[in-house]
């Protein structure tokens, strides 16, 4: 089997930036990823990526990819990593269908949507229940919908839906909404949005498609007639495929300031790590830092 200098797992802002640096350092490297763009591709409006006053998630990802493709990059897209074997100077990255060997790794597999874990959730996924308001929101124009969550992503979904839906319930399991004050005010002012605090989702109902949501509100069960359910209850790190590495209680991979993990030769960057603050620009910066650390690590290995 061929031995790469570096395998980058994930192709979001961290992975793509790492790839650009690796290409410029002329490393022998490979990228393995389920998709391109990661969570950034699912973002709505981005107004805090330096150099762009305003850009949409898909557009920014397109720019990232365009930049990356100016170099000749070997990207295995549509491959989910199932495990990592080895240690020291040789690691094997396994997917369902293939395996590749490398001297070092950068894990930038990001995060994914947390699920509710209630009955009806799996059955009605894409049948009225969605984790991506940005993508599927327009299909619910004129309908009654429920957004589950109380943070920024739930507020963002509620703001998107209040422009097109007939009625929006915002189901929050704490005493009051969190998230940015500006967004909370907009939601509070909308005659379309009804905020239900201290409420827990019990089940998603329907026949072929979603027709209702059962919530527990103060010990009483209520059935809300909705055709759409938007789950926005946070994110969990895609770190299950690697074991024997130090993670924090959230499952995030612990890295030092050089992006080194607890296993020498394995580096990590972006939202899958315990880096404080999860932002596109931070993930991109961490990706570049991780790649430069790999470069130094390899130089040291070959000189010793």
């Amino acid at each position, binding site marked *: 089997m061929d031995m790469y200098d570096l395998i980058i797992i994930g192709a979001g802002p961290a992975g793509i930036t790492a790839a650009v640096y690796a290409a410029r350092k002329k490393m022998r490297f490979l990228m393995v990823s389920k998709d391109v763009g990661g969570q950034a591709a699912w973002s709505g409006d981005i107004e805090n990526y330096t150099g762009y006053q305003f850009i949409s998630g*898909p557009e920014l990802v397109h720019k990232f990819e365009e930049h990356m493709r100016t170099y000749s990059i070997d990207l295995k897209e549509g491959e989910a990593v199932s495990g990592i074997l080895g240690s020291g100077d040789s690691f094997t990255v396994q997917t369902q269908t293939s395996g590749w060997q490398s001297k070092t790794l950068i894990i930038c597999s990001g995060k994914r949507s947390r699920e509710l874990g209630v009955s009806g959730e799996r059955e009605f*996924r*894409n049948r009225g229940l969605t984790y991506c308001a940005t*993508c599927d929101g327009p*299909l619910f124009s*004129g309908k009654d919908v429920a957004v589950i969550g109380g943070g920024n992503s739930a507020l963002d979904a509620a703001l998107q839906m209040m422009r097109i839906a007939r009625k929006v319930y915002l189901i929050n399991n704490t005493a009051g909404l969190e998230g940015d004050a500006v967004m909370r005010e907009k939601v509070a002012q909308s005659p379309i949005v009804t905020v239900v605090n201290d409420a827990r989702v019990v089940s998603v109902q329907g026949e072929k498609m979603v027709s209702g949501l059962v919530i527990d509100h103060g010990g009483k069960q209520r059935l809300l007639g909705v055709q759409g359910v938007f789950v926005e209850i946070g994110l969990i790190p895609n770190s299950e495929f690697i074991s024997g590495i130090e993670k924090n209680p959230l499952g995030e991979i612990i890295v030092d300031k050089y992006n080194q993990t607890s296993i020498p030769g394995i580096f990590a960057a972006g939202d899958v790590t315990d880096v404080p603050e999860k932002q596109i620009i931070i993930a991109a910066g961490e990706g570049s830092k991780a790649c430069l650390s790999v470069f130094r690590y390899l130089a040291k290995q070959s000189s010793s």
Partner: protein
Amino acid sequence: MGKNVKVYSTPTCPYCVRVKQFLKDNNVVFQDMDVSVNQAMAAEMISKSGQMGVPVLDIEGTIIVGFDKGRIQQALEI
């Protein structure tokens, strides 16, 4: 020979963008059905695919949900 290909999509969904780019890269001509502005098209997509997630491809009657590269290649024989 060109097959009749329809892509039901919204402008904001990343997999829609990728599926369309993939078709363009392979010189496949397709009809872009923006379901965010046309309710009739949205209803057509839901009845064809039995679900509400985008993108949906209709390749000569073969319905493919999501950016499933393998199945798309198979249906297009590319």
